[in-house]
């Protein structure tokens, strides 16, 4: 890709993510609605699995990533609800913004929101489930790589569903099977990070990295036709 095209793509991505962060600053949807939802999911897991902390502690990695996936669906729906309201999607098509830049900007915005949610959820499982990690580096790497993959896939499937009247109910059906590898790899890597030894945790991080790269690449090339169809 020519350097100028890449520069333009990154500049447009920065424009879009800046706008999305400003929208969140004004509306506080993530902080006032999605974050409480994520913490509520953690509390409901605790109710469902008995307040026996041993079970919760053992199940912490899986419950953490399930809560992230459920919250991710809301974050993606919000990210694309603002683009489909009031004819904004037509304005995006008519703009000079590079579609790949729009994709990266939307993915970056979703990713930043997810990171905030994950930090809050981490504090939640630490307090509610009594889980204490031993491998912090592995934990942080898992969060960053999984977030990149979820944000990229979310941005792609978000625009795919954006133009449909049934988008709110269709998105979970489309997304959850696709991100199952992130749930599995994230859970395994987190299990290693919470165990005495990191073990195979880094191998699972490799899978997360591959997933992220794959969906970022697909998004950069496929976002434009999907935007056309939405």
């Amino acid at each position: 890709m020519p350097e100028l095209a890449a520069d333009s793509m990154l500049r447009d991505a920065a424009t879009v993510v800046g706008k999305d962060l400003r929208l969140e600053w004004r509306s506080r949807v993530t902080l006032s609605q999605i974050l409480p939802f994520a913490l509520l999911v953690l509390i409901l897991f605790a109710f469902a699995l008995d307040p026996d902390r041993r079970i919760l502690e053992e199940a912490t990695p899986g419950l953490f990533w399930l809560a992230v996936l459920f919250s991710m669906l809301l974050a993606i729906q919000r990210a694309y609800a603002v683009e489909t309201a009031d004819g904004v999607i037509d304005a995006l098509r008519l703009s000079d913004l590079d579609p790949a830049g729009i994709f990266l900007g939307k993915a970056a915005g979703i990713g930043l929101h997810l990171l905030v949610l994950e930090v809050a959820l981490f504090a939640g499982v630490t307090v509610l489930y009594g889980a204490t990690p031993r491998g912090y580096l592995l934990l942080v790497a898992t969060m960053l790589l999984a977030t990149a993959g979820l944000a990229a896939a979310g941005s792609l499937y978000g625009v795919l569903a954006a133009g449909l009247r049934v988008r709110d109910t269709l998105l979970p059906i489309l997304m959850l099977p696709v991100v199952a590898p992130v749930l599995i790899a994230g859970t395994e890597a987190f299990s290693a990070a919470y165990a005495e030894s990191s073990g195979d945790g880094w191998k699972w991080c490799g899978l997360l990295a591959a997933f992220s790269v794959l969906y970022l690449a697909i998004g950069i090339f496929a976002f434009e036709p999907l935007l056309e169809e939405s």
Partner: protein
Amino acid sequence: MDSVVRFRAAVCLLGRFPALAGVDLDVAAGEIVLLQGPNGAGKTTLLRACAGLVPITEGDADVLGVDLRADRRPVRPLVGLLGHQAGLYDDLTVAENVRFWSKAGRSQRSDADAALARLGLDGRLAEVPVAKLSAGQRRRTALAILVARRPRLWLLDEPHAALDQGGRDLVDGLMADAVAAGATVVFASHELDRAEAVAHRSVTVAGGTVSGLLPAPLAEVPVA
């Protein structure tokens, strides 16, 4: 005079419905052309087709030198479309919306600020979230974005709708200014008295075709 819009037997299908059923239309550079016709006649689809937002499936369609049958995307940055919807982010302020869309159209911040002033949105209103605006104020904000982007072809769908008397006069002035600056304007309107006063000529859209070319210009067409 250069042709800005040239449609020949252009067909546009929305699903299976032929929203445009063989349109022939020529618009020369520097013209202000009024599209008139009943609801559902195809005026909005014709404007969206000119903007490259809906595909032409048969016939020929050329806008600003771009063959829309071959690839309609290159024409989009060259046109400005004011549709029924304003295309604004409700949670951003008026100024933030205008600046964002100006930046997305490769315009400078100074263009955005000048457009805000031109539309009378540079005062207290600039910092008001769009969600709190009246319909007329939203329309002004959408027009400010168009002004800031300085498109070569203005496509306006009911531009006077929701505006007060001052706003309607402002729209007429914007169209005249755009043409004076070298742009071309095609607009649809049901307010024929006002629209015919500002248009150089009028065409009638009915049943997805342009059926009534009025030969006599309604106003003097400027020499390009």
